[in-house]
């Protein structure tokens, strides 16, 4: 056992002993139990200690404190805190104590709090009083919680569906401003286009549509996934992409070429727009200008094996072929720097012959954790790829 692990366990034990044995205020106990749950690490460590902390919280009635504890906590800690909250609610109901309705409403209204905790508070109130939906949801259109947004958008879609075409258009447009889920965006876009409106779904979702692509390189027997061809080594060294230089490809010399996708959902179809070279791989690169250092999600959909580098750093790789493809199939947390950021994607096709194994494509977008597009600042990017508002 590593020394830091031993130290951590001793510390947790000390907190636990102190929490449950000393003469302290109830608020201190609650705060310590929450801290303890927030410190839970993956791997099944310290679960007995966590259980005792939940037991302590269950009888505390401290709903708001537990909900506030969600903010900044790991997904694992959030699940422990959720269980603590549910046990508190169960205990309070068993004791016939009323829910702190106004406090919970205030918490739901505070958008700086955890979206998961706010939604939990909302659903707890809704279970008791369904009327809260009509009271709170209309103001949730641009909420940080995708679940709240979905409800607010659904409400507007229903409203627009019942209205005449002219009256429906502004309602659909309002709905679109908050929509982050593909099914709702499709429904709204279809209605708006039917009403003669122009809808830029690519921009709405933040799909990157203009790429420089090079290939094919050899991926026979799926061996190319592990081979670092020159575009990859160049990217790793953060060297700029040179569209004039030729490289040795699978079928001869290759060089970077500009490829644009007009697809609503940003699908760049290598098989159709270039060629479905079986047993090959391609590299696709683009740039994304950020006005500041920021954390975003790069969301990718592809049925092909892939690797993704951001500013020369490999951020994820996945060797899986033809197990379906969908928008937002993969969500990769990424840190972007202020200025130009270079994205390089390696997309690999294998030699399967089945009809369903012929796709050679990807779609990639940049968004925040709610799924709302994060757009680059308007600029002319490197690599002869113009970017900006039309992305």
């Amino acid at each position, binding site marked *: 056992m590593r020394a830091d692990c031993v130290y951590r366990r001793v510390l947790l034990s000390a907190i636990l002993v102190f929490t449950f044995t000393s003469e302290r205020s109830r608020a201190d106990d609650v705060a310590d139990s929450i801290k303890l749950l927030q410190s839970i690490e*993956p*791997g*099944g*460590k310290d*679960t*007995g200690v*966590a*259980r005792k902390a*939940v*037991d302590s919280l269950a009888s505390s009635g401290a709903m708001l404190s537990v909900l506030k504890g969600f903010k900044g906590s790991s*997904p*694992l800690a*959030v*699940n*422990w805190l*959720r*269980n603590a909250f*549910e*046990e508190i609610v*169960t205990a309070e109901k068993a004791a016939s104590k009323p829910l702190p309705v106004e406090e919970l409403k205030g918490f739901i209204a505070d958008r700086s709090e955890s979206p*998961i905790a706010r939604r939990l508070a909302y659903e707890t109130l809704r279970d008791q009083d369904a009327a809260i939906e009509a009271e709170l949801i209309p103001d949730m259109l641009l909420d940080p919680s*995708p*679940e709240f947004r*979905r409800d607010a958008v659904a409400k507007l879609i229903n409203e627009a569906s019942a209205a005449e075409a002219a009256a429906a258009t502004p309602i659909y447009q309002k709905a679109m401003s908050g929509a982050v*889920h593909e*099914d709702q965006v499709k429904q709204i876009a279809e209605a708006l286009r039917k009403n003669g409106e122009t809808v830029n779904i690519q921009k709405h979702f933040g799909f990157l549509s203009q790429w420089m692509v090079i290939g094919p390189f050899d991926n026979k027997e799926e061996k190319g996934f592990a081979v670092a061809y020159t575009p990859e080594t160049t990217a790793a060294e953060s060297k700029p992409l040179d569209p004039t230089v030729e490289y040795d490809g699978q079928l001869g010399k290759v060089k970077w070429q500009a490829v644009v996708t007009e697809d609503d959902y940003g699908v760049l179809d290598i098989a159709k727009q270039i060629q479905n070279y079986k047993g090959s791989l391609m590299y696709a690169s683009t740039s994304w200008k950020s006005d500041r250092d920021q954390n975003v999600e790069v969301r990718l959909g592809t*049925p092909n094996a892939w690797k993704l580098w951001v500013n020369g750093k490999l951020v*994820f790789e*996945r*060797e*899986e*072929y033809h*197990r*379906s*493809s*969908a928008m937002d*199939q*993969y969500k990769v947390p990424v840190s972007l720097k202020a200025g130009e950021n270079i994205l390089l994607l390696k997309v690999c096709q294998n030699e399967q012959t089945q009809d369903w194994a012929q796709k050679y494509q990807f779609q990639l977008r940049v968004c925040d954790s709610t799924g709302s597009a994060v757009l680059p600042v308007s600029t002319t990017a490197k690599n002869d790829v113009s970017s900006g508002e039309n992305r």
Partner: protein
Amino acid sequence: MKRIILGTSVLAALAACDSSFGADWRQFRGNAANSVAVGESLPTELSGETIAWKTPLPGRGLSGPIIVGDKVFVSSSSGYGQDRLHVVCVNADSGEQVWQRQFDATGRTMTHDKMCNATPTMASDGERVYAFFSSNDLICLDMQGKLQWFRGLGSEFPNASNSLGMSSSPVVIGSTVVVQVESDAEAFACGVDTVSGETKWQIERPRAANWTSPSVLPATNDQPALALLQSSKGLTAVDPETGKIVWNFEKGASTIPSATVSDGAIVIPSNGLTAIRPSGEKFEELWNSAGLSPATPSPVVIDGMAYVMNNAGVLSAGNTSTGERVWQLRLKGSFSSTPIAAGGYIYAFNESGTAFVVKPEADKGVVISELDLAETILCSPGASNGGLYVRSDQHLIKLANPK
């Protein structure tokens, strides 16, 4: 002799600890993971009157129900991204919800439309329940719904996922929860301590998509119980305490229906169906039958017969001494659910929600009754104390003889 005395003592101790074990249905395909409800007498004339109760469930689920004592447990998933995880506890007599707990998925939740995050069936050791999801979240709760531990295997091993969904159900052997997490990009199996949630062992597995579930080879006087891990490469017997591989059957196997153990022999969905008999660290191949080829449902073996369901809904019966196919019976519709055997009958549910009671005879199978529940049913049912439990997309349903 010493081993026999020891074995007898252990069984007596187990019986003393938990006299209700025999009536429970604690995991996918039952306590022995063989789809046989020992000693159960279920209704054979199905009708509206045999629907004891029907309880609404949250979200969706392909996971089957498990039954421990007077409680029925089932998992569901909900939300636009199937990222809300539910564990529901229902009273077996009344159908009323006892409690429900929710969690947030920590791994990938994408699945094929037909599947959903709540595809693996839960498991229990009688004191705790273990819910596993396609997102590879493994959750342990006590019987009152108190979280005991949470393992986010999807976030701990982010490449161990399948965009079509994962479906392998865990099994509990002794003090270990055995799970298979196998995909093209990363594949492993692990044994997790039932009490602490810590990993006892983890072994690499063939890197390939795999939807099968572990089976259990019961303990003998010579050997403790073994976990049977199936993949496209074959079947591997593993010590559930240590993860040590005891033997390997390497002739390949299906990646959807799982192996079934009966009377010390193992029937493997391999090149049709292949039967082997293990002994210590070896095994003997008994027969192979290309004519008995299960599709999605796993084989059911009882009273010297193996029953398999193909894609067209044809139930085939084969002799387990020879592998020879004896009869076939065409049922209606497609089947994802593994049938169960109880009281000399086979109970099967098709995807559109029709339940069939089949009486297997020496040379033919006879449909005794059928009941259209009119809801999508993709899960395998469970049986306990005269009740047959099945979940649809919307409901948990108990079928039983009217009181």
